[in-house]
């Protein structure tokens, strides 16, 4: 099916199942430990051996030699495969550095060997016995220093310009010109990357933890230099990804090499420190924002420039993109620069671009609003735009940022925001902050196969993944709504490369795209049933487990007959996203307390109001948003990968050193969804929310800290060492 005209009324609009607060259908499997994650996959007939990776001990250079003799002789060891002797392999399309390097070391902890043994402990112990001699080379590890030789990135649109920014900025009565920085961040999801690989002749089966089945399968085939059709990949349950599992990673590659060498199925999980230095991370940014405004609060000039770094061949963190769309202003420019760094590979992490971009932009807006002397909620309302500011002929499909801000202000009790540093309770300085949330709504082709069997059970198969988001549930809801059955009559099977290729999970495109694919397949199935029965397609209704046309009706099970019927299709997308800008919007309101003595910042309450099209399931959508808000608290207050610029790696590479929020940091969260639909986005009229919830959170917190203390910090994370110099003296 091609979606190229705005959706009209369709069976989804019945909202008998869609839009209902249905608890996740895989919840019980998870709470009872029966959901089988990659590393736990188990067949009593298969004895897996254990692979343990060895990572490079240097950041850049060459491997002179590797002595594996002691490791090979260690107890239980079945095979040792090294980067020097692994045999032919290539780099996957989506990878920047080699997953299983050669003699060249491109970054710290790049995988250079895998040891396979009977037990995990034996493999780990033997991995330490491998002796590696390196020739170390000087690398580039300091983003600030590397910016001197930064270049315009090739692949993305690096620059944009409309009007005369410089002139308008010079002429503006109120201006802001500030620099902001965001640090490298780690996805740090609960489940590490893990894979089991089993060969059968030249065919490979892999159980893994992947957000994107088809990307992984293609890149695994490329890496192993084999036919993609000979790879069977499965990833039914994923313990979080946040973008860290979008692209094939070393666990799958090492498991495949290890299994080939050991002639046994092999399981490999990346140790926690590898998640930081072996896999991808969100790159740090240096951002400069300039805004010029009239005294009435109207922005006349806005510029956003961002620099980030990556390994050769990598890309920029696109932190300026939202600034092209979020606020009005006739004169505008954005620009990006990319520096070469020899740190581990930078890549997508939840809301890439917008998350760090808004961390800066939404502080800048708070600052210019203050300089103009207008309340920051009002300032954002004044500068709303209903069209793409660079192309006024191109409207937003649907944009209700103003609604989010107004409703949020009302529910939060915003008018209470006092002057900076004016509210105090005991030793707490109290402040409130607001930020806009903005994230583009992307769509991806997505396929599904839906089968209705002789028992009346609807079975959906698609290679879509559920990374903890609720895909199983919303897909079941979609099929139930389309086929007119209750949700308990639907069985959903995900994450298997034998199923139709879907959107996968990423860029908050998964929910809308994948359910649209299921919608398309259901339309096919409905047509097949209608046709088989000879019903009139104009008035056929699927409802209450029956199919009805005129005065004829039949239970679905009977309608399809004992052999059942199948509908399969892929949703493809026309030009609507070109003719109309599709984005999601929100407003974050936060209250913080800052300890006047120690500078510790603690969240007191948070509210998010989101305008993101139809909400397919308010329970799973809310979970997405509160999880994202939590991640935003980490970004604001504690998360930073510490770079050792001499040794070239992220030093705090475990969960003790890289501090994500804990329960005690998150006292109270509220989420409100605007009641809206967006017919331009898909037949589901839905959009993404999973990343929107993160966008702007950290800035709202930064603004609240400013309001609490009067100290403006433009460099994340806002830790107490940056604050205490500006706090009142102790007595």
């Amino acid at each position: 099916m091609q979606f190229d005209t705005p959706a009209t009324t369709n069976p989804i609009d019945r909202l008998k199942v869609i839009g209902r607060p249905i608890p996740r259908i895989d919840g019980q499997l998870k709470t009872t430990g029966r959901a089988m994650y990659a590393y736990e996959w188990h067949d009593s007939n298969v004895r897996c051996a254990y692979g343990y990776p060895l990572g490079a001990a240097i950041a850049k250079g060459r491997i002179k030699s590797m002595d594996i003799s002691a490791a090979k002789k260690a107890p239980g060891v079945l095979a040792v495969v090294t980067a020097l002797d692994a045999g032919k392999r290539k780099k996957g399309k989506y990878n920047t550095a080699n997953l299983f390097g050669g003699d060249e070391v491109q970054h710290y902890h790049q995988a250079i060997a895998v040891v396979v043994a009977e037990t995990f402990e034996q493999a780990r112990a033997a991995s330490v016995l491998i002796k590696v001699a390196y020739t170390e080379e000087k690398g580039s590890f300091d983003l600030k220093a590397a910016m001197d030789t930064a270049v315009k990135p090739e692949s993305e649109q690096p620059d944009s310009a409309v009007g005369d920014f410089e002139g308008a900025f010079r002429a503006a009565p109120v201006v802001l010109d500030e620099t902001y920085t965001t640090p490298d961040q780690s996805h740090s999801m609960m489940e590490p990357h893990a894979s089991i690989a089993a060969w059968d002749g030249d065919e490979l089966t892999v159980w893994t933890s992947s957000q994107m089945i088809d990307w992984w399968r293609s890149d695994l085939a490329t890496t192993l230099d084999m036919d993609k059709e000979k790879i069977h990949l499965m990833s039914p349950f994923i313990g979080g990804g946040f973008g860290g599992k979008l692209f094939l990673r070393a666990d799958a590659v090492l498991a495949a090499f290890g299994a080939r060498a050991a002639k046994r199925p092999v399981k490999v999980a990346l140790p926690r420190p590898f998640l930081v230095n072996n896999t991808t991370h969100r790159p740090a940014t240096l951002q400069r924002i300039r805004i010029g405004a009239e005294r009435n609060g109207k922005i006349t000039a806005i510029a956003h420039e961002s620099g980030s770094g990556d390994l050769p061949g990598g890309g920029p963190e696109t932190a300026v993109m939202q600034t092209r769309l979020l606020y009005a202003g006739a004169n505008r420019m954005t620009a990006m620069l990319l520096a070469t760094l020899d740190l581990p590979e930078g890549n997508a992490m939840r809301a890439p671009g917008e998350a760090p971009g808004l961390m800066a932009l939404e502080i800048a807006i708070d600052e210019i609003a203050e300089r103009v002397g207008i309340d920051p909620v009002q300032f954002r309302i004044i500068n709303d735009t209903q069209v793409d500011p660079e192309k006024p002929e191109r409207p937003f499909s649907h944009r209700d940022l103003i609604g989010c801000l107004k409703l949020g202000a009302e529910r939060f009790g915003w008018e209470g925001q006092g002057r900076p540093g004016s509210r105090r309770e005991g030793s707490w300085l109290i402040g409130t902050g607001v930020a806009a949330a903005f994230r583009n709504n992307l769509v991806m082709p997505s396929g599904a196969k839906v089968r209705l069997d002789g028992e009346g059970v609807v079975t959906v198969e698609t290679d879509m993944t559920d990374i903890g988001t609720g895909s199983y549930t919303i897909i079941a809801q979609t099929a139930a709504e389309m086929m007119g059955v209750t949700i308990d009559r639907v069985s959903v099977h995900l994450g298997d490369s034998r199923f139709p290729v879907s959107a996968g999970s990423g860029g908050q495109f998964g929910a809308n795209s994948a359910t649209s694919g299921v919608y398309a397949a259901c339309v096919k199935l409905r047509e097949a049933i209608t046709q088989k029965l000879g019903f009139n397609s104009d008035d056929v209704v699927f409802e209450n487990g029956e199919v009805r046309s005129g005065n004829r009706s039949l239970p679905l099970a009977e309608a399809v007959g004992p052999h059942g019927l199948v509908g399969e299709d892929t949703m493809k997308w026309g030009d609507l996203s070109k003719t109309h800008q599709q984005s999601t919007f929100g407003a974050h309101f936060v209250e913080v307390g800052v300890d006047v003595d120690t500078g510790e910042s603690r969240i007191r309450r948070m509210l998010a109001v989101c305008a993101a099209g139809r909400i397919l399931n308010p329970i799973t959508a809310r979970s997405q948003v509160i999880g994202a808000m939590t991640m935003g608290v980490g970004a604001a207050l504690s998360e930073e990968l510490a770079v050792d610029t001499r040794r070239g790696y992220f030093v705090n590479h475990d969960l003790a050193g890289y501090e994500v929020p804990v329960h005690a940091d998150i006292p109270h969260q509220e989420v409100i969804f605007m009641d809206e639909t967006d017919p331009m986005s898909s037949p589901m009229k839905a959009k993404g929310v999973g990343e929107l919830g993160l966008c702007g959170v950290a800035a709202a917190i930064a603004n609240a800290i400013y309001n609490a203390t009067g100290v403006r910090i433009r460099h994340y994370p806002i830790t107490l060492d940056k604050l205490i110099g500006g706090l009142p003296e102790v007595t």
Partner: protein
Amino acid sequence: MRPFTYERASSIEAAAKVAASNSQAKFIAGGTNLLDLMKLEIETPAHLIDVNDLGLDKIEATSEGGLRIGALVRNTDLAADETVRRDYGLLSRALVAGASGQLRNKATTAGNLLQRTRCPYFYDTNQPCNKRQPGSGCSAIGGFSRQHAVIGTSDACIATHPSDMAVALRTLDATIESVKGDGSRRSIPIADLHRLPGDTPEIETVLEPGEFITAVLLPRPLGGKHIYRKVRDRASYAFALVSVGAVIQPDGTGRVAVGGIAHKPWRVEAADTELPNGARATSRVLLADARSTGQNRFKIDLVERTLGAVIAAAKG
């Protein structure tokens, strides 16, 4: 983790004797620190002596009016003990400010005292670290050192001792009771237990090889207000950037020890006498020779500010 042999000690003396005669042996108590370090091959004992079955899990009143805390008393039990909560509130508060419920259920009194530093370079066997590999250099100096010590440091090591409990014990002037390999017993004031790094940061305490801690003695209760203030980047489950343990009397006199700033819980008796004169006067003496790396400079201000908060809380 390297392969190791394992035994369950049958008596305190036997445990100390085996440990003293085998340089590859280590005691294992709760294992919450030792096992993590063994998995990373930072500790590589060839033999483990499990000391959990020696009946050292009791808290008893002493004839001097204090408390004897068995070396194997779990952190959870110690924090919850009625007498500790009543008379040594500082200790209870310091304990519950540390780690998590699950860890405290396993962690023991002696193990907590002897836990090793959380310096991230110490934890990465690819990096030079004098404490882990004497003579290899200190990566933290000139590196990522925000968490590191600002006082009592050396050119060889700037690591901190991470324990919260030890700060409370230092404030309370606890005494460590131990048995050496030859069966002799001794008492070590907590002030003397931990060493400064000097040229040998790998030697962290004055305990001799194989010396076994049997108990920690608390002197008679001090009265006064017991305050433990732990400052950290997140609200729970994080090591202290700075922590202050204080006992302050109604007249403003008292004593104070500081965590997170040195290779040992940091107390300067001369600073105690400054407490009535306020935080600035006290920390001036406490931190007289402080030396920061730049990244951890804030700790010097933070000690004073936190101490100010503690003194104010004692008044309030």
